[in-house]
């Protein structure tokens, strides 16, 4: 590590986040990202990393995708964030496009500046529409850091801030358990079920066949709305525009964030059906957000939607997913007592390792070998492995050739063999 970096990390601890800064050093991930381009990151010492974290799909289209950069650049010559009280060309244009490309009768878009805020909007909207307060989500869920969203998630993110639910309005049920879901809904006092189509922070456990449609049916039976958190599963990551449609579910509310702005300008969207849109008609001033739906963000989001819908993209996702799967299966066969499972839908992948914190070991060795992938906070034996939707065959092969070495070294460390810690030239 360079003296500059050491010095910088010191200041990071002093002024930014001492705990997190130190934790990364303890995990031997000394990443300080400087330049970034496509699916590559360069840290401040000039080391290059292939990004298969992508901040949960934020950089789906690559870092600083040139088309998005151009849209922002030209957009800035005419627009800024805009005045959130007034009808706006950009916000309406994006809402129109979202209505076109989202499932079912989703029609209105309510804007936020981040995913958590958009989830809060979804919850407020559902409560207002159903005139009920309860929200059901999953055990080990994460839907954001904001007031309502944080209560739907794991205690790890609410309790330290004394922000957990104490009024029993937020119920959590285990994933893939329709009986538990039915029990939660039976009293008809639930406004909405909030589900991430594939729970990311929990390490992408995959919905069982029939689970999501089953939940949707229960919602209908017990008068609850279905909110699909598509923050990480939308925008072609499953090979379809929205993960939820792959499971045959038409939600009442859909939330998109992260990748919708290509990582260029913060924006998130809550798309709702007319059935939920009561407050928008009766009391349009009831909710406001100065930065929600910033117009520059809307322009980028429009471009993101356009790129995602090009016919080549689905094809590239399919190739990338299948090719990486083939290669990872081969690596898995080499280390069967360390690398035990692959959870996959499109380019959403979770790699399972045997040790309870196996993903942290794998992460460290991948990092040493020039790949940046993050462990799952709420299930650290699973590594999130999330390549972009425009990946080339060249990149995919490089990912595999580096992963093979890294996972071998991780296995050696985890299982106590020697020979770990090899580093290939970056």
């Amino acid at each position, binding site marked *: 590590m360079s003296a500059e970096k050491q010095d910088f990390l010191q200041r990071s601890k002093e002024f930014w986040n001492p705990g997190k800064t130190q934790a990364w050093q303890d995990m031997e991930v000394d990443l300080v990202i400087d330049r970034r381009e496509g699916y590559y990151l360069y840290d401040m010492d000039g080391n290059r990393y292939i990004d298969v974290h992508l901040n949960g799909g934020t950089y789906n289209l690559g870092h600083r*995708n*040139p*088309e998005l*950069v*151009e*849209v922002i650049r*030209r*957009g800035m010559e*005419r627009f800024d964030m805009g005045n959130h009280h007034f009808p706006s*060309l*950009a916000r309406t*244009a994006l809402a*129109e*496009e979202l209505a076109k490309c989202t499932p079912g009768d989703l029609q209105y878009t309510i804007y936020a500046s981040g995913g958590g805020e958009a989830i809060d909007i979804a919850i407020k909207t559902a409560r207002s529409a159903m005139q009920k307060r309860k929200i059901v989500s999953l055990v080990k869920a994460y839907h954001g850091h904001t007031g309502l969203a944080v209560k739907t998630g794991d205690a790890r993110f609410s309790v330290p801030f004394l922000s957990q639910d104490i009024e029993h309005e937020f119920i959590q049920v285990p994933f893939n358990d329709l009986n538990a879901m039915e029990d939660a809904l039976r009293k008809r006092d639930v406004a909405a079920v909030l589900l991430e189509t*594939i729970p990311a922070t929990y390490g992408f456990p*995959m*919905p*069982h*066949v*029939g*689970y*999501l449609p089953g939940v949707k049916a229960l919602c209908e039976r017990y008068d609850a709305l279905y909110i699909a958190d598509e923050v990480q599963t939308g925008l072609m990551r*499953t*090979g379809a525009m929205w993960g939820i449609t*792959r*499971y045959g579910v038409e939600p009442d509310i859909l939330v998109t964030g992260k990748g919708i702005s290509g990582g260029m300008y913060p924006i998130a969207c809550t798309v709702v059906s007319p059935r939920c849109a009561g407050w928008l008609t009766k009391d349009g001033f009831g909710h406001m957000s100065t930065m929600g739906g910033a117009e520059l963000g809307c*322009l980028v989001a*429009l*471009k993101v939607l*356009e*790129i995602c819908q*090009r016919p*080549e*993209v689905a*094809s*590239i996702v*399919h*190739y*990338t*997913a*299948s*090719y*990486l*799967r*083939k290669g990872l299966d081969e690596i898995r066969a080499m280390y069967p007592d360390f690398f035990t499972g692959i*959870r*996959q*839908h*499109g380019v959403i992948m979770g790699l399972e390792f045997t040790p309870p914190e196996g993903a942290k070991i794998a992460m460290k060795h991948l990092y040493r070998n020039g790949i940046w992938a993050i462990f799952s906070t709420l299930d650290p034996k699973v590594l999130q492995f999330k390549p972009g939707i*425009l990946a*080339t*065959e*060249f990149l995919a092969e490089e990912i595999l050739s580096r992963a093979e070495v890294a996972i071998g070294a991780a296995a050696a460390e985890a299982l106590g063999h020697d020979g770990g810690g090899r580093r290939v030239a970056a």
Partner: protein
Amino acid sequence: MDKIIADLVDQPDSPSAMRSEADLILTRAKWASEIFRGYDRERTQAIVQAVAQAAFEKAQEYAEWAVRETGFGVVEHKRFKAEASSRGLVEYYRDHDFVNPRVDHERMIVEIPRPAGVVFALAPATNPIATVYFKILSALMTRNAIVFSAHPASRECCNHATRLLAEVAERAGAPDGVIQAIDEPTIPLIDEFMRSDKTSVILATGGMAMVRAAYSSSNPALGVGPGNGPIVVDDTGDCKKTARYLVDSKSFDNGILCTADSIAIVYRSIAKQLRIEMERVGAYFCKEDEISLLREFMFGAGSLNVKGVVGRDAPLIARDAGIRVPLRTRILVAPIKKIGIDEPLSKEKLSPVLAWFVAAGKSEAFTQARATLRMTGAGHSAAIHSSDPQTVLDYATSVEAYRVIANTALSQGASGLTTNLAPTMTVGTGFFGRSSVGENVGPMHLVHWTRIAYAKDASIDISSFDGKQLKFSGPLASAPSDGVPGEDSGSRAAPPAEPRAPVSPGNRRQAGKGRPVEEHTEVDLRSEIRRLIAEELRRNRGE
């Protein structure tokens, strides 16, 4: 969407938008080529056969469409070229194996074919369908992916054909995206495709500017320049036959091919007799004042009048030029006194108009033929009608052309339709024509070979390579979509094992025998093609 927003989002003029559009298509193509190169010969041939058959069946339809859309050429000739560039082409390369290794026992070298990857192909408006067929099939035979950019004037028929063949190929098992067409090619967009590091080779056929751009792109290119074929006729041949060949060749697709004849350079001693014979089979010789009218009409604006003459029927050109000719006229002949930039009629004409130069004898004929090709068309094609092998040899040595067609029609002969040259719609103009390839381009140019070599005095048994097979990975199995009915890991079947017969030079031919996909190639297509050609020529002669 309001225009203000649409303009900001679309930005069709922005270089980054164009680069991204190209990049996305090429990324997909690259993926397809990566998988395709792992296909064995049987799978490859199944795809090639299916595409050739579909193309063949559509030849008439697309020939009509091309003439309708571009206004160039003759439907039946375009159909003929399309048929020859589909089933005919595949038949020609039937015994060429671009997939399996070959063992050279003598030199102790083992050669493994390595496909180029992604072929970026251009098709000219003058010869759209046959070019699309030819390039797509050449790419498929060699397990390459191909991206097509049609000339704007023939975009609709080209893109339709390209997409149709893409569908057929994928149905026959080709990787998704192996054949793609560009919706709306523009010069800057094409430039992005040519410059991209994802393009493995450019197969450029078209105008000189396009070909030069291909060569300046920094990518490998197989570019071919224009033609301007001279035909020398000496006094040793059969005037009657020569006359027929000249008229058949010049009228083929109304003179639109780059292999079309440009100037007949005839010995004075036979000029009169040849002229009479040509008039008999549909040539109209322009008189002095008519030559001026024709020159003015064709080149009056400084360059070739594309709309007025290219690929049009001779009587229509004559009419528009102000010349009265019989309706049955197949070609116009314009006698000229000199060959060079100061005589526009000696340049490439892409129409059923033939210049006519009477030479004193061998020396003058040869220098004028050289002069023709040095002006335009260097490295392309030339013809001679002579029964004296020494004259033929001297001519072929003198003239800067890589094809010299002897005693038959130049247009069809040089592109391998009626000779044993490789059938092609891309005629290499070699070093004379500032190109990297001097022969008729074909599938063999889209594959390079990895060569395993041993020391000259090594005592190894090279024949132990016979029958060894490459590890063909075949199609890519789809990754599971966990939780989606029928697509999750639970329902995923193990990929089927693929036993293959060992392949060695000895049994390679047999390897294809008895398999359903290759069965219908057992019919002698080659003779069918010959029959078609003979019929075509007979029809042309009005027999």
